[in-house]
C-alpha cells in the first residue's frame, strides 16, 4: 500500500465524480469481455476466404472492430516476443551477436515478403477455422512491428547504468525482481515511443494486407482495409471517404486515449536526477488517476501475486550468492544443450539455404537482369523521396521548432499524422493519379512521401526544440548571417535528430515501395519498374523464386546502406554533433 504523503509526487487530490469513473471503467471491462466472446465465435467458424464487404456506413463499426482487434493482438504478440528476444540477446553473450544480426536483417525485409511463409504456415496449422487466416494476417502485421521493439528493449537493457546493475547484484535480486524493478521500468520509455511507431507501421501494413491473393486464391477479410479498397474498386466515393475518415478517427482516438496518457505516465521512469519543467500532460491520465479502482486495484492484485513469488525466489540458490558481473572470464564452457541447439540450427539453415538455391536456379537470366534494374530504380526512388521529404520538412520543422509555443501545438499533430497509415489514402491518390494521367513512376514517390515524411518532420521539430537557447543567443549577439545560422547552428544542432528521422523514413519508404509501386485499382493493375512492384506481382502470379530473390536484394541494399551510410552518420552524430557533454 503506498503511503499517501504530502511530500510525494502530487497526484490530483480533488476527486470529482469518482463513482462515475469507476462505473465507466467497470462497463469498459464488461464490453471487453463481450468483444472477446464475439471474436472467439467468429474465429471458430468455418473459413471464408472472401468475405462479403458491405458498403453501408453502418457496417463500419464492426469492420473497425475487426481491424482494431487484429492490431491489438498483433501488438501484444510483438511486445511479448520483443521483450523475450531482447532479454535473451542481452544476457547471452555467445548468441548476442547472432541474434542482433538476425534482427538487423529481418528488419530490412518488407512485410509483404513474409506473406507466403506466414500465411501458408498458419492456414496449414489451423485448416478448419477462420482463425487460420486471421492468425496469418495477424502474424504478418507482427512482422512489421516486432523488430524495432526488440531493438529498443535490447538497447535499453544494455544501457542500464552500471551501478544500478551492481545494486541489484549485491542485494541478490531474483531475476523476477530485477525484471520488474529495474529492467522493465528502465526500458519503459523506449518501449512506449517504439510502440507508437510500431502500431503506426502495423496500421500501414494492415490497410494493405486485408486483401491479398495466395497461390491463385483471393483472400478478403472483413475490416477497414478491405472496406476502403473495395469502395475504391467499385467507385463508391462516399463509402471510401467514410472509411478513410474512420481510420483517421481511430488513429486520433488512440493517440489521445492511449499514447498521450502512456507518455505522461512514463515520465515516472525518466532517468533524470532533477525534475524537468516540461512535461507532457494528459487529461485522460488525470481522470484515470481519480478513479479509485484504477489506482488501487492493479496495485493490490499485483502485490498479491508478487509476494509469494518473492518469498519463493528468496529461497533459491541464486538469491543466496552474489553473481559476478563479468562473465567474459567464464566464457569457453558452453553447455551440451547449447551445442545441440547450434547444430540443429545450422542444419536447418543449411537445408533451407539448399532448398532456396535450388529454387533460385529456376530464375532466368532475363528475370535476374530485370530484378537488378528494379533494384536500381527503387533505390533511386527511395532516395529521391528522402531528399524531397527533407527538402520541405527541414525548413518547416526548424521554423516550427524554434518557436516553442507553436511547436508544442504542432508536434503532437505531426505525431498523429505519422500514425495515420498512408496506405489508407493510397486508393484516393491512385484514383487522382489515374485521372491526371500520370504513371506510378512518379506517383510511387508521392505515395512513399506521404507515408514517411512525417517521421522526418517531427524529428526535426524535436531537434530544433532541443537547440539550447544560449547558442541561439550567441548567434543573435554576433549577428550571424542566415547562411551562418544555418550551417553553424541549426543544421549541426538538428543533425542527430535528422539522421534518426531519415533512417526511419528510409526503412518506411522501402516497406512502402511494395505497395506504392504496384497497385490494383478495380480491374486495372498499376505498376512501375521497381523491386517492390516485382515482389507484389510475383505474389499475385505465384512466382516464389522471384519473391525470394527480390527480398534478398532489398535486404542486401537496406543492410548495406545501414552499415555504410547510416551507422557512420550515427557515429558522427554521437561524437561530433552531440550537444551535451
Amino acid at each position: 500500500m503506498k503511503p499517501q504523503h504530502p511530500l510525494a509526487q502530487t497526484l490530483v487530490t480533488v476527486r470529482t465524480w469518482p463513482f462515475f469513473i469507476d462505473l465507466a471503467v467497470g462497463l469498459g471491462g464488461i464490453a471487453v469481455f463481450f468483444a472477446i466472446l464475439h471474436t472467439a465465435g467468429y474465429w471458430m467458424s468455418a473459413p471464408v476466404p472472401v468475405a462479403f464487404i458491405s458498403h453501408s456506413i453502418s457496417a463500419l463499426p464492426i469492420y473497425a472492430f475487426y481491424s482494431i482487434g487484429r492490431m491489438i493482438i498483433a501488438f501484444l504478440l510483438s511486445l511479448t516476443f520483443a521483450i523475450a528476444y531482447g532479454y535473451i540477446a542481452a544476457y547471452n553473450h555467445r548468441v548476442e551477436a547472432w541474434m542482433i544480426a538476425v534482427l538487423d536483417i529481418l528488419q530490412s525485409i518488407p512485410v509483404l515478403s513474409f506473406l507466403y511463409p506466414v500465411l501458408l504456415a498458419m492456414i496449414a496449422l489451423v485448416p478448419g477455422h477462420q482463425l487460420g487466416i486471421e492468425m496469418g494476417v495477424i502474424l504478418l502485421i507482427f512482422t512489421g512491428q516486432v523488430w524495432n521493439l526488440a531493438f529498443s528493449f535490447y538497447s535499453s537493457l544494455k544501457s542500464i547504468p552500471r551501478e544500478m546493475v551492481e545494486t541489484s547484484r549485491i542485494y541478490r535480486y531474483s531475476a523476477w525482481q530485477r525484471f520488474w524493478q529495474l529492467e522493465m521500468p528502465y526500458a519503459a520509455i523506449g518501449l512506449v515511443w517504439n510502440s507508437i511507431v510500431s502500431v503506426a507501421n502495423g496500421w500501414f501494413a494492415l490497410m494493405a494486407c486485408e486483401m491479398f491473393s495466395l497461390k491463385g486464391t483471393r483472400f478478403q477479410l472483413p475490416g477497414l482495409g478491405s472496406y476502403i479498397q473495395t469502395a475504391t474498386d467499385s467507385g463508391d466515393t462516399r463509402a471510401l471517404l467514410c472509411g478513410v475518415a474512420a481510420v483517421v478517427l481511430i488513429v486520433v482516438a488512440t493517440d489521445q486515449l492511449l499514447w498521450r496518457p502512456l507518455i505522461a505516465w512514463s515520465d515516472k521512469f525518466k532517468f533524470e536526477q532533477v525534475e524537468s519543467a516540461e512535461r507532457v500532460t494528459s487529461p485522460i491520465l488525470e481522470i484515470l488517476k481519480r478513479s479509485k479502482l484504477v489506482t488501487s486495484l492493479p496495485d493490490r492484485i499485483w502485490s498479491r501475486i508478487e509476494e509469494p513469488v518473492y518469498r519463493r525466489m528468496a529461497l533459491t540458490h541464486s538469491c543466496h550468492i552474489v553473481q559476478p558481473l563479468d562473465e567474459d572470464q567464464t566464457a569457453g564452457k558452453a553447455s551440451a544443450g547449447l551445442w545441440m541447439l547450434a547444430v540443429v540450427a545450422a542444419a536447418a539453415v543449411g537445408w533451407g539455404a539448399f532448398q532456396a538455391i535450388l529454387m533460385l536456379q529456376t530464375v532466368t537470366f532475363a528475370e535476374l537482369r530485370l530484378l537488378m534494374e528494379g533494384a536500381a530504380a527503387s533505390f533511386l526512388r527511395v532516395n529521391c523521396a528522402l531528399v524531397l521529404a527533407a527538402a520541405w520538412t527541414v525548413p518547416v520543422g526548424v521554423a516550427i521548432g524554434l518557436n516553442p509555443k507553436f511547436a508544442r501545438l504542432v508536434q503532437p499533430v505531426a505525431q498523429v499524422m505519422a500514425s495515420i497509415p498512408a496506405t489508407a489514402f493510397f486508393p484516393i491518390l491512385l484514383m487522382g493519379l489515374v485521372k491526371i494521367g500520370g504513371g506510378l513512376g512518379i506517383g510511387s514517390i508521392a505515395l512513399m512521401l506521404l507515408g514517411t515524411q512525417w517521421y522526418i518532420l517531427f524529428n526535426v521539430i524535436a531537434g530544433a526544440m532541443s537547440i539550447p537557447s544560449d547558442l541561439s543567443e550567441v548567434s543573435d549577439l554576433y549577428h550571424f548571417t542566415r547562411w551562418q545560422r544555418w550551417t553553424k547552428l541549426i543544421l549541426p544542432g538538428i543533425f542527430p535528430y535528422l539522421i534518426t528521422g531519415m533512417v526511419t523514413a528510409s526503412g518506411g519508404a522501402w516497406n512502402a515501395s511494395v505497395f506504392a509501386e504496384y497497385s490494383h485499382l478495380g480491374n486495372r493493375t498499376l505498376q512501375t519498374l521497381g523491386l517492390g512492384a516485382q515482389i507484389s506481382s510475383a505474389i499475385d502470379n505465384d512466382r516464389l523464386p522471384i519473391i525470394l530473390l527480390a527480398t534478398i536484394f532489398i535486404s542486401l541494399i537496406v543492410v548495406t546502406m545501414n552499415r555504410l551510410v547510416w551507422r557512420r552518420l550515427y557515429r558522427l552524430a554521437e561524437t561530433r554533433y552531440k550537444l551535451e557533454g
Partner: protein
Amino acid sequence: MQEAVLLAESQSPATAPDAIIRAERIEKFYTQPSQNRIQVISATNLSIVPGEIVALLGPSGSGKSTMLRMLTGLSTPTAGQVYWHEKPIAEAEVNVSIVFQSFALFPWLTVLENVEAPLQARGVSAAVRRDRSMKMLDTVGLDGFEGAYPKELSGGMKQRVGFARALVVEPEVLFMDEPFSALDVLTAENLRSELLELWANKTMPTKAVFIVTHNIEEAVLLADRIIVLGKNPGHIRTDFRVQLAQPRDRKSEPFTQLVDYIYKVLTKPDVAPDEAPEQQVEPKVRDQRQMHYQMLPHARPGGIAGLLELLLDKGGRDDIYRLADDLSFEIDDLLPIVDAAQLLGFLQIEEGDAVITPSGTEFANSEILRQKELFRDAAVANVLLLRQICRALDAKSDHTVPEDFFLDMLDEQFSEEECQRQIETAVTWGRYAELFDYDAGHRRFVLPDAAEEEVATRQEAE
C-alpha cells in the same frame, strides 16, 4: 603492459583471527581485442577484520573500484581467490552492502520502496519490511520522506537513502565507493560525522567498513587503517594503522602529519614509502588522566538565581555588559555567574547577549524548594564532578567518600590551589542542591542528613 608480480603484503597480521573477507593473491587482467592482456591489479593480499574502518586510498587508475568489486564478489579475479569466512566467495552467502558515489537509487520507486527492495529480495514479509525500513529511515534522519521520489531530494538526502538501503539488511561489511564525492563540502561533513556516530554507538550490527576514497583528509578522519594503492599495475604501497582517538581534530599535529605523509607517498609513486609517522598511541583503557572536568565557575547559587531573575525581568534577553552595568558589577565578576548559569543550561550566549532558556525561565519563576529541585537536576546533568560525587556516595555502603579521591583526579587538570577552589564550589553547589554534605572535620563527602536517615531506616528494615 608490465607483468611484474609484486607480492605486496598488507601489514595487518597475516594471522588475523577470523578475517571476514580475505583476498589471497588476487589479480585482475583485462584482455583487449588485440589479444593484449593488461594487468590492472597485480597479486595482492588483503584482509578485512571485524571492528575496523578500512580506507583504500589511491590515485585514479590504481584500480580501487576494481579492488572493491573483487572483494564483494561482483567481479571475479583473474587469478587468486577471495574468501568469505574462509569459504570461496562465489559460493558463500555473502552479506555485504555497497553505498555508491552516484547513489544508484531507482528513480521510479519511492524512498521507502528503494529501502525495502533488498528486504524484498530476501523474502521478508511486507509488514516486517515496512517496519524495518521505516526505522532505518528514521535513523538516517529521513523521517517523513517515505513517499517522496528520489528526484525530489537533494544530493545529501539521496545519499542518506543510499545508507538506509545499505544498512537495512544489516550487512556484516559495509562497502563504500567514494560515497561523499558527489556531495558539497558541508553535506559531506555532516554525513561523515553521522556515519562515525552510527559506528561508535554500534547502532548498526556492521562489523567492518571498507571505504574507497581519493580524499586523503577523509581517509585520515574516518579510518582505523589506511591502505594506499599505487598504479600500473595496481598494488599496495603501504598499509598502516591510524591510532588517533575519535573525534579527530583536523588541525592537530598528528593529523596533519599523517596527511602530509600520505600526500608524500601519493605524489612520489616511484619511491618506496617510509614508515608511517609515530602516533600517540592512546591506550584503550581510560584512566584517570583521560577524564576531563569542566572548570566549575566560582559562582554561588544565589548569584545565579539573582541573575536569572534580573534577566527575566529584562524580557529574557540582554547584553552582558549592560547587565553588569545595571548590577554595578565588574564584567569580570559577572562572567563567572553567567558561565555557571550557562553550564547549568539556564541561559545561552548569543552574539554577546545573554538569552534565558525555558529551563532558566522556570527556575527564575519558581519558589525556593522548586528552585533547589531544578538546580539539583541541572547540576547532576551537566556537571561531571557533582555527578561523580553523587554516584560514589550511592555506591559505597557507608555513603561517605574522602575528598582526596576527587582531589587526585582534579590534580591532573588544575593547579593545587585551583583544585581546592573547585572542591569548595562543588561543595557549595552540592549543599544548596541538597545533593550531599561535606564533613570538614574528616574531609569527607557525606549524604545529606535526611537521606542518611532514610538509608538507615531501610537498612534496619532489611
